[in-house]
């Protein structure tokens, strides 16, 4: 059984939220010119998290590391073999944000991090089980011994709080 809840990126780990802007820059350098230094930096920041994520999904340490090295998380999502992006979203996602947009995006991400940290344990648990263990609502209900409706309402409330955190920016 995997441990819950996850803890925030403290205790020796550098919180990634502090480096979002840098991350975007690294991704650009990798995409544009396959910059080995940029890749190494990104790998060192995300590899351990992806490995930890894979171990939460039940992979042993060696397999988790192989998977993290290949960085193919999306292929391993359970239940849903594909989730098509609506028309136009790929283009939007790949366009380089303007400096102002990048700042706003960074702030949005920080608000999301802050709202997540504030969530009561019972709400954070259902969100974590969905995102990090890929459990459906019914599977979460079974795991936690809760009615399905309770799982859904906890997720709704959790999202409303995150949404409220973002609304003050808009």
């Amino acid at each position, binding site marked *: 059984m995997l441990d819950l809840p*996850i*803890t925030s*990126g403290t*205790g020796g780990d550098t*919180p990634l*939220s502090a480096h979002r802007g840098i991350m975007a820059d690294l991704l650009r350098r*990798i*995409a544009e010119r*396959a910059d*080995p230094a940029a*890749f*190494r930096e990104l*790998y060192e920041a995300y*590899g*351990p*998290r992806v*490995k*930890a*994520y894979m171990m939460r999904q039940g992979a042993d*340490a060696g397999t*988790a*590391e192989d998977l*993290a*090295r290949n960085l193919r998380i*999306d292929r391993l*999502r*359970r*239940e*849903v*073999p594909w*989730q*098509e992006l*609506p028309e136009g*979203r*790929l283009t939007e996602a790949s366009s380089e944000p303007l400096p102002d947009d990048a700042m706003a995006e960074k702030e*949005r*991400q920080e608000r*999301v*991090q802050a709202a*997540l940290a504030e969530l009561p344990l019972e709400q954070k648990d259902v*969100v*974590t089980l*969905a*995102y*990090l263990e*890929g459990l*459906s*609502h*019914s*599977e979460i209900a079974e795991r936690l011994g809760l*009615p*399905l*409706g309770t799982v*859904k*309402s906890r*997720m*709704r409330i959790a*999202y*409303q709080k*995150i949404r409220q955190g973002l609304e003050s920016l808009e």
Partner: protein
Amino acid sequence: MTMNRHLDDSTLMSFAAGALPEALAVVAAAHVAVCPRCRDELATMEMLGGALLGSLPGAAMRSPAPAAPEIERHSSSRPAAAPPPINQGAAVGEVPAPLARLIGNDLDGLHWRWVAPGSWLRHVPITSGRLHLFKCSSDVALPEHGHEGSEITMVLRGTISDGTGLYRVGEVCDIDENVEHAPVAGTDGCICVVAQDRPARFRSLIVRLTRPWHGM
């Protein structure tokens, strides 16, 4: 329970997390493809997923980063990757692309199975959950049922109403367990796609007895 014609936030979150059973995910993707509001919410929820991954304490890596040539190969192959096929042809707009991958674009050309006067069914094979298309003549009710799990109904043609209001093309009814649900086709009839993560509990004895035959 929500009756707001959009996907419930908990459904969207599960979709963003990649945790929605396939049948529900197909209908969620079909709705998101035509709904800017749900698309915006989904973007925020995907950011939340990134934030959660970023907050995971890392597990120490034993190997150094893979060599750069591997990256070069990946990145150089990227521009050649074709975008996913977008819904095209005579029925553009009627069947959103995520659903068209499973049933095609021609709703009239499908093989429909008669289930009751003015009511036809088409079972869509799927690996997780249950997915059906219903076609009903005007004012005909879809079979009344409750749920042990989740259900999402999306209108593909015409309208339906279920006592809480009218649902038009592209709108969804995303409801919780234990909700008795009896949508009725509007004056022009309807075609709907219905996804469930578990079999529905039909109230009619006839429907329950003939369920294996219908494939429900």
